[in-house]
């Protein structure tokens, strides 16, 4: 079997997910044994001018240039994988959508803001069709490998559509709510093996909100632990502001 041509691209992001790939360690050798990396700005300078078997996209779409670029990449790619919160759910870049775009431009670029036209932050699937999602900020390395294997086999990968609590309980962590800390685990999609909570941090909701959260139940819990509603919304919007844009703008 010929090795598939794989390219990595980045849009508005911190490039941290690329670092996660470069930091796969020993497993990187297995990954490189299975694929032929033809473009990857973080680790190589070569470019590829033919079609891609797999394009792996980091970052969110935040201006018209990016819209054009991602559309062209999509046209050239058989399979497109969005990875990292910025690409899969908009991520922290989505916080811009809570402001007037002109105000945001002025705040960042001062009086010259008109030279830097911007649009609302979009997740990749809100602009072009996406075949696979690797959620997380940064991505959880074992999940990237699992998705890559699914893509190579041509089978679907199902992002767990249940709460982080499931994996957290299996890891036998003390619940953050019992420690008196508000955690986004109960409404956030699992798949990260409760990585943050295992290491003493809370869940920030970086993998996106469950497709069918129980809103009335969540409100009861928020009230039970006397958590201010605006704090919950801020926590929610830190990564998940782009969900307001819907599936395909």
């Amino acid at each position, binding site marked *: 079997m010929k090795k598939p041509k794989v390219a990595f691209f980045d849009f508005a992001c911190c490039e941290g997910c690329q670092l996660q790939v470069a930091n796969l360690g020993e497993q990187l050798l*297995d990954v490189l044994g299975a694929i032929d990396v033809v473009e990857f700005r973080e680790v190589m300078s070569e470019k590829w001018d033919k079609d891609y078997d797999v394009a792996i996209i980091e970052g969110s779409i935040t201006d018209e240039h990016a819209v054009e670029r991602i559309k062209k990449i999509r046209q050239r790619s058989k399979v497109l994988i969005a990875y990292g919160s910025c690409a899969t759910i908009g991520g922290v870049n989505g916080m811009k959508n809570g402001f007037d775009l002109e105000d945001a431009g002025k705040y960042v670029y001062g009086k010259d803001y008109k030279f830097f036209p911007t649009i609302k932050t979009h997740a990749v699937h809100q602009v072009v069709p996406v075949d696979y999602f690797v959620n997380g900020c940064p991505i959880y390395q074992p999940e990237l490998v699992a998705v890559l294997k699914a893509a190579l086999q041509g089978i679907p990968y199902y992002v767990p559509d249940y709460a982080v*609590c499931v994996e957290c*309980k299996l890891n036998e962590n003390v619940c953050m709510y*019992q420690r008196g800390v508000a955690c986004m685990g109960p409404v956030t999609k699992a798949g990260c093996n409760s990585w943050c909570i295992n290491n003493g941090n809370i869940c920030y909701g970086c993998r996106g909100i469950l497709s069918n959260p*129980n809103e009335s139940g*969540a409100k*009861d819990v928020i009230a039970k632990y006397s958590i201010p509603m605006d704090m919950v919304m801020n926590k929610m919007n830190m990564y998940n502001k782009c969900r307001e844009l819907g599936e395909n703008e």
Partner: protein
Amino acid sequence: MKDVQYLVLRKDNLSSFIAHLSKDQKVMAPVSKGYGNYAFEEVTSAEQVALKYIPTILPPKKFFMPQRETLIEYNLQSGLEVNAVLEHEKMTLFGVHTCDLAGIQCLNMVFSERPKDYNYLLRKRGISIIGLECNEYCDEYASCNIVNSNMPNGGYDLFFTDLGDCFVVHVNTQVGDEMVERTKMFEKPSRTHFDAFMALREAKSKIFKNEIPIEPRDIPELFDRSFDSEVWKELEQKCLSCGNCTNVCPTCYCFDLLDEMNLDLNSGRKFRKWDSCQLEPFAKVAGGENFRKSRAARQRHRYYRKFEYPVAKYSRFFCTGCGRCSRACMADIKLKDTLNALIKERMNKLWIKWL
């Protein structure tokens, strides 16, 4: 070995007892995790063990059927090469409460059914169990009396009862007897030991009362008549479907079977991991149909799997009264409250009939 054998272990010998056991195998015991939480973890001395503890976050089932367990490894390189994987290790569980002993007994019944689950049974064979009696309720969530699991009913090799400065130890099996022989720290009990032991059991019968106003034998009938109860609809509003209640349950054993290929796409493994009927994808099948789409239906199913279906199949409740599901529920769905609400609704219906 005699049929019934009681011995005494002085408390200041506990540390050397555990140290002795941990020399040739892992000893797992409840340890404090802070914030009033406990977990079964490996210990090497008695100082690490929480002798007074409320049920651990996960029950000891995690040693019998780990959260993730490889069952088969395969290679497609030259035809189909399949190898069964049977992982197991020798270990001793120390300090298992009677509710968890009951939970292990339930799982033993399930996994011994044909076709037998050899992965489970092989692990079970390597695990020795030392029980520990609860002299009083652990907290308000427990309901062990109504399901008759606050007293020892077998399922252990040794059983410890704390009498202050010593433990009275019931030797129940050959394995238990060997532990006694090997460690050589146990003494014959005196009359005073027996008197104190009997007094404790007497006191316990006054402390432990039915936690829910119903006779245990009437519970299956209550469930028979409660399938369309309003109580389930209330749970629909509350439940977050986080699966905490089933993951921490000592008798929930549902698992999912998954395949995982290696990057060579030639070799791989089949493994199982804990699944939960509370999760939305659990009863979803090809074509997108979901047999238990509503949270109400899923919660109801959980209760029926504790108080109705297993009574018909195994003649026992699959609730051990440990209270873990109530403790772990962020949405405050409490087992005792649910049963009380069902009873109340039933009584109201009966009154309406009579009036």
